[in-house]
């Protein structure tokens, strides 16, 4: 695939050796930073692009960017992907009791059209793989909400051998809603807070993911041992 967006034609800036958000020098050895769709067979590699992503520049002048941020904040399309037990509280949120449609929040069944990814609760290693693919197939600007205590520090699964402990080491998280299980009111409050952050232009998760791409990939490959998916799936 080739990108039709000419903003993507500018060169890739040097990826940092490690992200300030993580312990330095962690996982990013030369062995971990091979990013040529290594997990795939040759004919499959033809199907995916092998161009690294590039960060986007905000619109200029600045009031246009503010206008677009306001639009994004008021039309949030959530990817309908129930990754964990938090999905049980998304049903009351979208239905008549707490009607999230009032705030321009609606569910989209395909990641291509979604702009908000809700990681609902704990995510096992097997699910993390699907979360990463769904996240990379979403088109930027994209925002991630970590739902539940399990996405923050593992919660009560702190000693489970199959669930990740920190979500923000694998995909950039813009907002956490803590609790087990968070009530729909808390979820709505989280959405309002996300709106505020989007309007203020603080949600640049997609850019962070691009800047520290190698660091994220190294962390992901450190956990996902069966890496049979492309490194760049978009």
């Amino acid at each position, binding site marked *: 695939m080739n990108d039709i967006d000419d903003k993507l034609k500018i060169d890739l800036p040097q990826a940092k050796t490690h992200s300030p958000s*993580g*312990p330095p020098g*962690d996982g990013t050895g030369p062995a971990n930073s091979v990013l040529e769709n290594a997990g795939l067979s040759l004919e499959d590699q033809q199907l995916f692009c092998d161009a690294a992503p590039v960060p986007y520049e905000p619109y200029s002048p600045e009031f246009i960017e503010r206008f677009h941020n306001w639009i994004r904040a008021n039309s949030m399309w959530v990817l309908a992907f129930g990754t964990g037990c938090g999905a049980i509280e998304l049903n009351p949120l979208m239905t008549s009791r707490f009607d999230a449609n009032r705030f321009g929040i609606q569910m989209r069944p395909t990641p291509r059209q979604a702009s908000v990814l809700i990681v609902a609760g704990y995510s096992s*290693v*097997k699910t993390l*793989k699907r979360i990463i693919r769904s996240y990379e197939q979403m088109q930027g600007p994209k925002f991630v909400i970590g739902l539940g205590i399990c996405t*923050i*520090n*593992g919660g009560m699964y*702190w*000693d*489970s*051998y*199959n669930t*990740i*402990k*920190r979500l923000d*080491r694998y995909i950039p998280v813009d907002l956490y809603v803590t609790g087990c299980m968070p009530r729909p009111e808390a979820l709505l409050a989280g959405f309002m807070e996300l709106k505020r952050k989007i309007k203020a232009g603080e949600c640049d998760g997609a850019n962070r993911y691009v800047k520290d791409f190698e660091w994220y990939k190294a962390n992901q490959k*450190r*956990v*996902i*041992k*069966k*890496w049979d998916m492309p490194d760049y799936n978009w």
Partner: protein
Amino acid sequence: MGHAGLQLVSKEFMQQLCERLTQRFDCDQILHQKDDLSFLRVDKDKLESTLVYLKTHEGFVHLSFVTVIDYIEDDIFRLSYMLHNYESKTDLAVQTEISRTASTMHSIHHLWAQAWTYQRELKEMYGIDFPGSPRVNDEFVLEGWDGPPPMLRDFDTAAFCEERFVEREGRESQDVKQTMRDNLYPERGEV
């Protein structure tokens, strides 16, 4: 039929069943846990015939689950096949013990159509091999698992998390007993 009457029926059915099993398979290790729940110990090679007999002659047609208990100190696995009889409303667990090293077991996939799922799980979680069971070597719930079978007693999941996943800074997990002693029951002292 009330609760009491039902208990009587299942109780005497159990006793008759035990006699039949004893004089058929000369296995006298039958533990009665409840009126409608008993545990039967058989040898490894007698297990399949026992299950066939129980399913075809005694009406234990429902396989609730298959599980294994890891007795690492005795170096044995104890397999449990929980059967249920809908006529007499009784549960019977057929148990057998196999060696913990190089553990294999006969597949009972030809008796129950869902048995292969349990055998697949046991293969993944305990490393018990079931030759002839379909898809027994496929991954069941784990993906790309590179450690020992995780449900074994000697697999330390906390240490595994330490080296595989990275905790968030500032999280400490404290010993619940110590905390309760200090905060909730200080007057009890060092109980």
